[in-house]
């Protein structure tokens, strides 16, 4: 593929899901039994042949750094390029960035130093499979200035979003921000391709003009005078924009088709921690669930996602739950629609329940 450098926004949109981002960045939200959200953006890059990735962080990035380490689990511990963390305060402003544009300004030194021709920009709050080299091929073929990737789905109005209107060849004719209406739209998924030098000029120009929003001040008005093209992401796409969508996106993994689409034909790389295989005892009864390594199941589990090292006591019933790493559920507990963050302990005989549209959330390290 054409030489390409990747940039991942690991902290963007964390206000959407305060429960899970209290002590971590969006990218390090645990997902799917053994992953962090950033694994999907990173794996997409690595599987597309990108070997230099800049990771923009904001605050609370300790858990992200702990997860990423040197980048060796993504084959990104390299002499040339590899994974490069881009912490905030990289320029003279001494202010924490407030928007995507300021964040990107913090990456200009990294982007200037890079030698690659193209840049892929992506967020880390969504789950999808995409070969970015195909987007770049399209970008070159259309002689585009910017290529924006979209996915067609119903509008989700809980957060900031952009929708695209395009001509038949994919040229973007209009970009709308938070449009009214309903129905299926071409939703921009915050994955963008541009020539590296073009992007640098764009950012420089925007800062000189005092622009603050990448979408409102650059992309949306730019449609008229520039070649902005849209590339369609086919297949599964989930974006984590609320606790509810987090719950649903995990539950969708219980669908075989979704699992095959996300995990089939390629590796999703993640940090490896060498837990022993999951153990089921004589009294275990498990239906329609994902069970990660290190689990010990002595009770009943149904329609749930169990992360590494979760223990389910005898006689306990866990239905429609997401239990993150090292949760311990006591004997004879009864849990339904619970999302429990890491390292929590639920004592014997407790009954906890949320409901489908509002799961009951348990903070990291709670004792109930």
């Amino acid at each position, binding site marked *: 593929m054409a030489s390409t450098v990747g940039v991942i926004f690991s902290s963007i949109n964390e206000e959407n899901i305060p429960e899970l981002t209290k002590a971590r960045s969006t990218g390090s939200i645990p997902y799917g039994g053994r992953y962090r959200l950033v694994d999907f953006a990173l794996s997409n890059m690595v599987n597309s042949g990108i070997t230099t990735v800049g990771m923009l962080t904001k605050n609370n990035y300790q858990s992200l750094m702990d997860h990423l380490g040197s980048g060796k689990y993504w084959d990104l511990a390299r002499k040339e390029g590899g994974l490069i963390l881009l912490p905030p305060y990289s320029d003279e402003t001494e202010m924490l960035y407030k928007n995507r544009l300021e964040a990107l300004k913090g990456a200009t030194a990294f982007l200037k130093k890079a030698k690659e021709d193209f840049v892929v920009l992506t967020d880390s709050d969504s789950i999808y499979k995409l070969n970015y080299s195909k987007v770049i091929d399209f970008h070159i073929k259309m002689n585009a200035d910017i290529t924006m990737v979209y996915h067609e789905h119903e509008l989700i109005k809980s957060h900031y979003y952009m929708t695209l209107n395009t001509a038949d060849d994919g040229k973007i004719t209009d970009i709308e921000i938070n449009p009214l209406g309903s129905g299926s739209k071409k939703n921009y998924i915050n994955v963008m391709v541009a020539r590296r030098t073009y992007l640098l000029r764009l950012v420089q120009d925007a800062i000189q003009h005092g622009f603050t929003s990448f979408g409102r001040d650059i992309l949306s008005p730019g449609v008229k005078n520039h070649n902005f093209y849209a590339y369609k992401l086919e297949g599964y796409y989930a974006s984590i924009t609320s606790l509810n969508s987090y719950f649903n996106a995990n539950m969708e993994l219980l669908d075989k088709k979704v699992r095959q689409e996300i995990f089939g034909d390629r590796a*999703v790389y993640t940090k490896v921690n060498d837990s022993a*295989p*999951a*153990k089921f*005892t004589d009294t275990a009864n498990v239906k329609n*669930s994902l069970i990660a*390594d*290190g689990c010990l199941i002595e009770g009943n589990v149904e329609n749930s996602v169990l992360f590494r090292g979760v223990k389910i006591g005898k006689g306990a019933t866990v239905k429609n739950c997401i239990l993150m790493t090292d949760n311990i559920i006591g004997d004879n507990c009864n849990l339904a629609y619970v999302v429990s963050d890491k390292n929590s302990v639920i004592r014997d005989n407790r009954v906890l329940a949320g409901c489908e549209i509002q799961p009951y959330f348990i903070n990291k390290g709670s004792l109930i």
Partner: protein
Amino acid sequence: MLRKKECVAMLLAGGQGSRLYALTGNIAKPAVSFGAKYRIIDFPLSNCINSGIDTVGVLTQYQPLVLNEYVGNGQPWDLDRTFGGVHILSPYEAKQDTSWYVGTANAIYQNIRFMKMYDPEYVLILSGDHIYKMDYDKMLQAHKTANADCTIACMEVPIKEASRFGILNTNPDGTIYEFEEKPKKPKSNLASMGIYIFTASKLFKFLEEDAKNPDSEKDFGKNVLPAMLNAGEKMFSYRFEGYWKDVGTISSLMEANMDLLGVVPEFELTDRDRVIHSRSPLAPPAFVEGEVINSIVATGCEIEGKIVNSVIGTNCVIEKGAEVSDCVLMGNITVKAGAKLNYAIIDEDVTVCEKAVIGEKKSKASNLEGKTAGITVLGRGVTVNKGNKIPAGEIVDKNV
């Protein structure tokens, strides 16, 4: 700068493992899968790093491809080092004194130059076919305290099995006065575990002498250890207490896998202080829909059938209506709808088609005599066609 390592480990991984039959048809014994997500070599390698030994030579000879690829640069065991780390040592050609490895002692002898690169005080000799967790550093401290020339790890075994092992006859202070390799009439039940620590200078001296002796079989147990004893070197026994299993036969491999099951298993792998590291496959968590009872299941599995008392390796697919009882499934195995597997060890990449029946119920099969004691074995890559029946105790190494 002084570049040296106090202790270098040499891991004998060249064995053919002929008593594992189809399981070692084209891979070396240390590369055989174990406990759903491990390979046998994970145990000595993890023990090394958990004991603070970061320089390991792995001596390979027989079918080394899978083993070499698996060990790689040693990263899964934190053995990718700028100085030291894990190194694969294959036989090589030179002007003189080299050949295929003809015995355990000869294999180490041919790699004296490797050991000398690290200028070690001590050399730890390990074999690649045992399942156990051990702190080699404790043994090393005992070796130093005793001011020994050679320390041999040993454990008590039932006296009737003693003739399968190298047996140590010791004084009350732990010094060894006699070493018998697989004696017909054992005098004690203290069996050598094949784990030796040598003071390096003594090891090099006796290996060089052994190499010159045309009558020697170039074996540690038969030649080098008795020679050291005869020369009056200080040889100590080091008693190990804990789980240890030689998985050189089909039935012992089955037993060791089964020892992982249960809330309080014979052999505990979940201990987070002494983690057994492995090259983890990148697979999502196991999806479980069917019935899983008293079993362990690795990542990437899709279980819709029934699993009882079994060890299920990575990326196995058990379809609806399939039943797996008292089995070891190594990895990447598909068991199709309605197939029944009983008391069997199934190697990687096997497909068992619809309604095929493998083996017989453990209660019946385990009374059988024969090479595998009633355990049915399917070798790597085999396909068992629709509706076929494989009798208990069979070893299958081609499609049927």
